[in-house]
């Protein structure tokens, strides 16, 4: 239904999709401009940064497509339309996820895919079956982690109705951070992105394995393969928080 409604305003839809592609593309252009002045950023080459960028962008693109609408829960709480979702015989989380399903978000995904392809082509890596397999695994695990963050952010809005922007710090902010090598950031920031919000498992940890780089985060060897497990735990935690949020929901008005 929302797909059809999106396609109804064809010019706007096209512009939003192209905008999505161009938006993330220009983001990367900024990184390319950086590399016109330098050979390496934090010890990483341009294809390596492109790999980090493409992988996190693909994960976030997928998550945004599936769970991006969780960011609008606050608006629904404010105008009282959550009630409508409560009386329908479908899980509220599924309804929220499908609400205003924004097809134009595929723009980011297309761009991420192209960039990831370019990066994989130019990477100087001795490909093993494990490394090849790790690429799709990290993108899907990363998408689940980002989706969990989006859902927790949505649940948080049941309590703090107009704080949807806090979520941006973790989603867009986190994604911006993951576009760059972990060596760029201070130790505290990396720790926060590993243990507080497990964003490091979206791409940093598995990507270091793919790139055959020594561990710069100070984690044990098995952490390289922990992304799927971390993703599952994140989704489970998000489910619990979402339910708690829904229980705490108090309708507006009389």
């Amino acid at each position, binding site marked *: 239904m929302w797909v059809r409604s999106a396609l109804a305003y064809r010019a706007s839809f096209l512009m*939003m999709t192209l905008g999505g592609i161009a938006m993330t593309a220009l983001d990367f252009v900024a990184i390319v401009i950086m590399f016109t002045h330098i050979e390496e950023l934090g010890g990483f080459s341009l294809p390596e940064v492109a790999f980090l960028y493409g992988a996190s962008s693909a994960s976030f693109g997928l998550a945004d497509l599936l769970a991006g609408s969780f960011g609008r829960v606050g608006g629904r709480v404010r105008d009282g339309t959550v009630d409508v979702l409560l009386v329908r015989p479908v899980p509220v989380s599924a309804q929220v996820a499908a609400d205003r399903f924004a097809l134009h978000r595929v723009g980011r995904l297309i761009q991420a895919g192209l960039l990831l392809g370019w990066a994989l082509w130019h990477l100087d890596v001795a490909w093993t079956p494990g490394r090849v397999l790790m690429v799709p695994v990290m993108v899907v695990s990363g998408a689940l982690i980002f989706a969990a963050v989006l859902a927790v952010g949505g649940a948080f809005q049941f309590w703090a*109705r107009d704080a*949807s922007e806090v979520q*941006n710090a973790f989603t867009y902010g986190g994604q911006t951070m993951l576009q760059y090598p972990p060596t760029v950031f201070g130790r505290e920031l990396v720790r926060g992105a590993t243990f507080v919000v497990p964003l490091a498992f979206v791409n940093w940890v598995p990507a270091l394995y793919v790139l055959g780089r020594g561990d710069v985060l100070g984690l044990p060897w098995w952490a390289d393969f922990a992304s799927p497990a971390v993703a599952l735990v994140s989704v489970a935690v998000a489910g619990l928080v979402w339910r708690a949020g829904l229980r705490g929901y108090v309708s507006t008005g009389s």
Partner: protein
Amino acid sequence: MHRGGVYFTVTAGSFRRYATYRVATAAGVFTNTVFGFVLAHTYLALWSERPRLGGYDQAEALTFVWTGQALLAAVALMGGGALEDLQARIRSGDVAVDLYRPVDLQLWWLAADLGRAAFQLVGRGVVPVAVGALAFELALPSSPVTWLLFLVSTWLAVVVGFGLRYLLALATFWVMEGTGLNTLSTLLNTFFSGMLLPLTVFPGAFGEAVRTLPWAAMLQVPADVLLEQHRGAAAVVSALAFQAGWAVVVLALGRALQAVAIRKVVVQGG
């Protein structure tokens, strides 16, 4: 009431309105601060490889980052602001009522946007810079004249930003669904204002071209004024004149487009 008085009341009302969104403001401050840290670290990595890149030393580059975060909401670089209401009113047709009123449509919304910007500058600007100054070594100026010039430059940046967004809002008269345009505008705003990377770092002729576009007036110029990059009074005056020139151009364009758009208004129903 006196004419000027009306607009001042609109500005004050808009300031108060945004001041009531306390949780949203706190959330915005948090987000700006997180982004500031992320960007600051990438700049540190970049400037440690290439000291004096783009004419800034490391402290100046970091100050550029935090200035950007402070101005982000005030100049409405990521969209939003008072003009989203105008867009909604155009879509719903309520704008027909606005055209009835004995005030100028463009000045009315400019007044509202200035009130919003004034609040955002204080509410969302001061804390990120303070946090940035605690965490990093910044190059904030000590001269009160520089700060005063920075405020003037910021005010001009807000007006240019308003002018561009007003054009965008009026475009809703033709496309009806403005979300796509807004996405595109955010993209142009962030890339060409210097939000992602200072425009002085952009290479060659492309860089020179980018520095003459109106978006440069929205962040690059105020940041350079704060960083005292313009040596001498003449240089500062020409930087402010660059902003004022673009402000006049975009406001005049908005006025012309408004005249066309008003003729297009169709009031639906009997």
